[in-house]
């Protein structure tokens, strides 16, 4: 317990006073030639490094940090990472000999910080365990291993058909207002009790939106294992530009160090991290602004030439470490906002090609009431399948086929001819399966519940239920299974796959439930 007494403060001050050194070293110093748009051109600083942290000293002694970006023959182009207005021409600029770093550690959990790791939630200073460079070269091939653990989002459509593994990079892409953030937030909430550290990086969003997200996470108890890095729309472009990298650096601390603060190794496991970049299109816009004001030549859509490299090096930092390196993982869920569903724009194509798959969200589906509005036809996950639970793999196979056949037939039946029985059955099944995937926000399902739900659909138990009752059927079935047939669920949980016995029990249980299920019509 902290005591607020004059004595305690006196003690603190004395302790700090002891550590005060008065030695004066010479520092390389330049002066600001020009400042504006969050960019400063600095004279001198011949020994500055690319990405080095610079100290700008304002007139009244306030220090604003900056990052060296353009190293030219006789000047340095730097971006300002703080109060832009405090710096004027002719102000001194010092090099620090350090690259831009952010603090990290367990102390940051539950906190909202800016991209420099400074808390902005008014909950007092953060005690950091260590720090990591914002720009960090991703580990090479031999330090990694293939994705082999699932990262469940709790969303039926995603976990069944677009499975994500720990260490994967899965893009969430869609127009505005299609529920991109909702999927990411649900995924974070679903990590409760799964020993996963989550980082939510908000880039260029309204501060009120971020506050809403934080409140939601808090209410759900998800802030206990979540760090929010926020560079809101009012922050300078450079801050928005480094925010995702800062988030990655904060996450890397957990991946590369074990619980005891030492480097992760075979007997000091690294932690699992889930990081959400919401969203990278805004970061790209911020980077474009920064690059143009730094007078770098513009390319396609006026983005600088290295915009692809910006995103690829960021997403390459998502990793599943080998067991020798502690086996930590960083799963990345970047979000890209498209304009009018155009995925062939510059940034969407770039990020699609970098990531290990994408979850497409469609406006039409959203307004048809299919929420989450995941278009399962074009969404893919290139590596997650190998990390999927066996039972889910078994049931998801038929689900995929059913839905694919349904989509194909649906296109044909638009012409409205008479249908034979088989076709009608197929359509009926598809309609029920599609309905089965509807899920409200904040109602994540454990993976075995998902298995039961999809099993009931795949084995035709839903076919005779009216479509509008499917969601209720699913919910009540899960409740029934847990309340009345816990032994079946326990067996499923234990085996993690569908054996003959379990299938028989499941069939019986679902049949029994169906008999007592009252349809609404």
């Amino acid at each position, binding site marked *: *317990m*902290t005591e*607020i007494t004059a004595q*305690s*403060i006196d003690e*603190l*001050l004395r302790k700090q006073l002891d550590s005060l050194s*008065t*030695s*004066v*070293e*010479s520092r390389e110093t330049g002066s600001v030639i020009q400042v504006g748009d969050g960019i400063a051109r600095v004279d001198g600083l011949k*020994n500055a490094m690319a990405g080095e942290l610079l100290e700008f000293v304002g007139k009244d002694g306030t220090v604003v940090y900056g990052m060296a970006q353009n190293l030219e023959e006789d000047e340095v182009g730097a971006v300002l990472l703080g109060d832009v207005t405090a710096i004027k021409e002719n102000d001194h600029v010092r090099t620090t*000999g350090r690259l831009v770093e952010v603090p990290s550690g367990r102390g940051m959990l539950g906190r909202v910080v800016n991209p420099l790791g400074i808390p902005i939630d*008014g*909950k*007092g*200073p953060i005690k950091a365990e260590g720090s990591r460079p914002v720009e960090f070269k991703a580990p090479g091939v031999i330090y990694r291993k293939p994705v082999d653990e699932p990262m469940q989002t709790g969303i039926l459509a995603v976990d069944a058909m677009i499975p994500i593994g720990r260490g994967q990079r899965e893009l969430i892409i869609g127009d505005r207002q299609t529920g991109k953030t909702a999927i990411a937030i649900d995924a974070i909430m679903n990590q409760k009790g799964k020993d996963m550290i989550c980082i939510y990086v908000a880039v260029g969003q309204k501060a009120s939106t971020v506050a809403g997200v934080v409140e939601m996470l808090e209410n759900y*108890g998800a802030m206990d294992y979540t760090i929010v890095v926020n560079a809101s729309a009012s922050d300078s472009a450079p801050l928005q530009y480094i925010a995702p990298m800062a988030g990655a650096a904060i996450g890397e601390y957990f991946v590369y160090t074990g619980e005891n603060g030492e480097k992760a190794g075979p007997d000091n496991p690294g932690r699992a991290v889930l990081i959400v970049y919401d969203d990278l299109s805004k970061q790209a816009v911020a980077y474009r602004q920064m690059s143009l004001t730094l007078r770098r030549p513009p390319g396609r859509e006026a983005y600088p030439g290295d915009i692809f490299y910006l995103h690829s090096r960021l997403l390459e930092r998502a990793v599943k470490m080998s067991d020798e390196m502690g086996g930590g993982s960083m799963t990345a869920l970047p979000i890209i906002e498209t304009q009018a569903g155009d995925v062939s724009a510059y940034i969407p194509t770039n990020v699609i090609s970098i990531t290990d798959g994408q979850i497409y969200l469609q406006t039409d589906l959203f307004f048809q009431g299919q929420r989450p509005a995941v278009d399962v036809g074009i969404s893919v996950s290139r590596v997650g399948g190998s990390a999927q639970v066996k039972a889910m793999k078994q049931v998801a196979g038929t689900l995929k086929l059913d839905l694919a056949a349904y989509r194909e037939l649906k296109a044909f039946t638009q012409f409205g001819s008479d249908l034979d029985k088989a076709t009608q059955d197929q359509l009926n099944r598809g309609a029920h399966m599609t309905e089965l995937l509807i899920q409200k926000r904040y109602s994540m399902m454990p993976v075995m519940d998902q298995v039961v739900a999809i099993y009931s659909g795949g084995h035709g138990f839903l076919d005779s239920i009216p479509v509008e009752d499917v969601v209720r059927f699913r919910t009540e079935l899960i409740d029934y299974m847990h*309340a*009345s047939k816990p032994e079946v669920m326990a067996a499923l949980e234990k085996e993690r796959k569908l054996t003959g016995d379990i299938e028989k029990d499941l069939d019986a249980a679902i049949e029994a439930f169906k008999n007592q299920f009252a349809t609404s019509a």
Partner: protein
Amino acid sequence: MMKKRAKKASARIGVLAGAAGAVAAFPTLAFAEQAEAEASSGISVILPHMVEFIPMLVAFIVLAIILWKFGWPMFEGMLVKREQTIKNDLEKAERDRIESERVLSDYKRQLDDAKNQAAQIVADAKQTGEGVRADLAAKAKVESAAMIEKAHATIEADKKTAVAELQASVADTAVAVASRIIGQDLSDDEHRAIIARYVSEAGSFNAN
């Protein structure tokens, strides 16, 4: 059994027809008797006249043949059918009885099942209810504990913030006071002494 009875019936009819044939075979004897009866007046009353007797006989024979040929099979078919019907009815009754017994036992069993099930459901519901109540209680407990803990954490954080702010403001004040004292109260010579000390302590221009 049916066939035997039919055979017996046909045999009986055969005997009758044989008798009729025998009467027809000895008409002269009959007429003689008739004449004798007429003569003797008593018996002749009941004896047919020969003139009537012949056509009657012929007609009888014709009728007998026709009946034999067409009537008999119809009659026999009717008999067989009736026999069949009765037999079927008996069998059906037997079957129905068995069926009804089975149904009854079914119903009884279902009733038992239902009773058991009802009891089970009630028991289940009770159990579930208790489970839910315990769950809710536990959850509420955990929640309240978490809330309290959160509140504690918030208070702690607030305190820390307060201390940090206080510390900062003390530091600010101290520094402000120090700068004022140094700036205003130091004489030029004291300043020069500070400069001399700083110059001698300062690092080199060449150091990195």
